[in-house]
């Protein structure tokens, strides 16, 4: 067996045992919708920045005061077990501000949750990130972006609709302990798609429209 065949065989074997949890089409739609809003918001923000810059240049050359109000700590942000958009953006801005105080340029992309920093700023970043955002806020924010229960309910409704139109029982729609659609439910959805694609898609379209997503 050549090295190529050996590698291919073993990697395929490893790949066959990898398990993942797709977010689901409905969640993909929601994320796409959010991204559109963010992009549109980004253009507005950019326009406001330009207008503000023109205004400052036109009216005064005196440096504007920087708002140094105490940013919330991660534990303060998570006091109500939730991260609002304002808190998320403020936390990112606080990390950037903290790095700036240490002489490091940084940018925060709230839609990606990413920071662009110089490789030399690693230590300062870890310090600032830990003080103002931390993994706890990052993870809470990420998990808030996805509602597995709503996703499950959406597909449960689609399957029920498909069953009522075809008079076929495609199987159980159950959730796992975290509220995600179980493996059994995924199989049920797949059975509905394969056995009655037209009815399934018609139901899916109707439910999407009825929910205004």
């Amino acid at each position, binding site marked *: 067996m050549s*090295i*190529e065949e*050996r*590698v*291919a*065989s*073993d*990697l*395929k*074997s*490893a*790949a*066959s*045992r*990898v*398990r*993942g*949890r*797709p*977010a689901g*089409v409905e*969640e*993909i*739609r929601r*994320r*796409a919708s959010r*991204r*559109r809003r963010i992009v549109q918001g980004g253009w507005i923000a950019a326009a406001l920045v330009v207008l503000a810059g023109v205004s400052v240049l036109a009216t005064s050359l005196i440096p504007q005061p920087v708002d140094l109000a105490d940013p919330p700590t991660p534990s303060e942000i998570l006091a109500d077990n939730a991260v609002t958009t304002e808190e998320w953006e403020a936390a990112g801005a606080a990390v950037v501000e903290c790095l700036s105080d240490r002489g490091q340029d940084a940018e925060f992309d709230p839609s*990606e949750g*990413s*920071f662009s*920093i110089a*490789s030399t*700023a*690693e230590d300062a*970043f*870890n310090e600032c*990130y830990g003080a103002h955002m931390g*993994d706890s806020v990052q993870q809470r924010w990420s998990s808030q972006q996805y509602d597995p229960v709503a996703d499950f309910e959406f597909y449960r409704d689609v399957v029920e609709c498909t069953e009522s139109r075809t008079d076929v029982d495609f199987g159980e729609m159950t959730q796992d302990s975290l509220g995600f659609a179980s493996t059994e439910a995924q199989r049920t*959805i*797949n059975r509905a*798609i394969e056995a009655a*694609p037209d009815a399934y*898609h018609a139901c*899916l*379209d109707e439910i*999407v429209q009825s929910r205004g997503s």
Partner: protein
Amino acid sequence: MKMRRKKKDSENLTVRSFEGFYRGSWSEIHRAVSLVVGSADLASEAVDEAMVRAFEQWDEVSRFSNPEGWVYRVAVNWARSWLRRLRFRSPSEVPDLAVEDPEMTDPRILRAMQQLPLAYREVVVARLVLDLSEAEVAEALGVPKGTVKSRLHRALNSMKEDLE
């Protein structure tokens, strides 16, 4: 009125096609990306992020000869930027790239794979796991065919040395 109706039908058709693509290809792309990035969780995020972008541009992406290859590339790129970001965090947060599979014929192969640069891994997986032709890999990854050949050749040589 008629125009509006027509547009609505067209949108429904687009949604339908994407739905089938998502359900039919997610697992295979996810497995491939997992092998490249060494983390099934990170790969899940990456593939779904890539799927969002595919959905946004589905009219165009669906016409590609190999939309799976496109999503694979976008997902690997997203994961790459995430891993790059993690470099600035504590080392313990970086995913364990040396995933072992006890049922593999030779677990050293996966370990040898993870020693390769990511640019080589993405070619190896696209060619040997997704079974794309060299031309398809080149198109999917946006690199010349010669680069695919040379990266695959070097990757396999390197792995061979690790296994000897």
